[in-house]
């Protein structure tokens, strides 16, 4: 649940960072879904390995 908390908080921040109308060339809102999925999945694997 802690990791879920990190992901939720980060998703929220990324959402608001990308939802406002100004352009965002550095962090592209269109790629947010894939990037967050990749990051979340990799973090879950890392944490799971450590806990074994």
């Amino acid at each position, binding site marked *: *649940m*802690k*990791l*879920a*908390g*990190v992901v*939720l*908080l*980060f*998703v*929220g*921040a*990324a*959402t*608001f*960072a*990308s*939802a*406002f*109308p*100004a*352009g*965002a*060339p*550095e*962090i*592209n809102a*269109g*790629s*947010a*879904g*894939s*990037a967050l*999925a*990749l*990051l979340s*999945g*990799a*973090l*879950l*694997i*890392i944490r*799971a*390995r*450590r*806990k*074994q």
Partner: protein
Amino acid sequence: MTHSPASVSEPACEGAGSVVRRQASFSLGLSRRFALFSLLFAAEFIPISSLVHKDRGAGTLLEIAVVFVPLLLAIAYVKSPQTFQQVSAELRLARLRWSLLGAHIAALLAFLGLSLAQAANNGLLSGLTGAVLWYTTGFLTLAFAGWAFVPPRAALRLVRHTRWAWLYALAVAVLAQRLIIYRTLWNGAVWNPAIDLSWKPATDLTFGMVNMLLRMLLSNVIANRATMMIGTPAFHVEITPWCAGFEGTALMLVFSTAWLAFFRREYRFPQALLLVPAGMAVMWVSNVIRITALILIGVAGAPKVAISGFHSQAGWIAFTCVALSFAVFSRQLTWFSAEPRTETQPQAATHNPTAAYLMPFVVLMAAGMVSTAASSGFEWLYPLRVIAAAITLWYFRSKYSELNWRFGWLSALAGLAVFGIWLGLDRFSGAHLDSPIGPGLASLGSSGRLTWLAFRIIGAIATVPIAEELAFRGFLIRRVISADFDSLNPRRFTYLSILVSSVAFGLLHGDRWIAGSVAGLIYAAVFLRRGRIGDAVFAHALTNALLAAWVLWSGRWYLW
């Protein structure tokens, strides 16, 4: 520093000792309810933000509310943390109000209907009545969702100690909205402290570092600090504040702070706090490298790849790499880690069931980001996704031999149903009809075209369904219930776990998140019926196969 096992999993504002916690698999305290509400809000706000921002000032109101509500709650918590603990403990005993979530969905659909009617300009939403209806449905959408997670009586108890603090929170929220959101941030006409005191010097720093790196690699560098243009006569770019490193650094600030806060018992403070600026600095430097690489790609003769593909992907790739490095290496440094390193850790780490379920999906996402970054619209490197995922699946084949890959007729029906739903909901997705695939394929020779299509179809009906079903149905449904997910029966679920896995699956599909979420629910249903991963994979593969046939037959490449 030692802690009892019970306190490890409890958020700071939960766990009042005076109330006995009910032994239920589905109990939600205050922080989890806030988190779920935020997730729901984010999931719904992303795709409809353009409708909310369009006019009538609703976007402004929402932006003010986004600052106002958390700030007021923060003040309330500081004033009376005991009240939060008490309310949280009581909410653990209360059931989630599913009927109100149903009302929320009904209000959301009404709001969307009115918004789309307005977009179609059919006169339904004109005049005062239309405006009142639009605002009312929008307000009810938020109110029902809020009520479902935190009842009004509990919410009032939380803020009743704040007295006149709501005025202060409102003033700050309005000021923040005006200063940070409403203003154009690179506006030389209006003095803006956000720009003049930090943005311009920081952008200058990025410009100087890129200039230095480029001059080490190229001989004909042109750099104009007045216009912020940098590159070569053949290819140059403008470094604006938006690409100067602020966004990535801000995301790193959020990530590193959240990471240290949630896993605070694993770190040694105060020295661990140094990791936050260190992570931000690394992210800033990585952005300098990103801009330098972008210019080098453009100079090397691929300006379209530099602008279209690399530009949009490299920021996320850099952030993902820095964030993962932060998570892995921050604990390796003994000065920061609260846990002494032991010799038994490497041996214990060899068993990781999560990796078998998630690694193909993670590799698929990583390969997708790389192949998109190397493209200029048309993803010519798509075969990389298929090959990378196939190699990963092969690597974990012994683990997959333990799973049940059989499937039944119901999974075929499910696949067919999702295909119909996908096409039916496509008109509401707002997806762009123009796709780079058609022109991209036309530019290839016949053998190249056939090879690309073969890999695209294999990806759609084999590697993608297997990787995604392992991640979302095989893993996530049970992982939401327990960290020790592999010990649970594959048919074990809660309504929350199904909702989380389906919505996460839907969000992965961007504009088509509604169709994706519905598809996730259906695949979850066929998977959970007998606990066979084969049912979900076959249903998913059949949907994608039918979709591929439809795309090839109709030429509607945007559906891919």
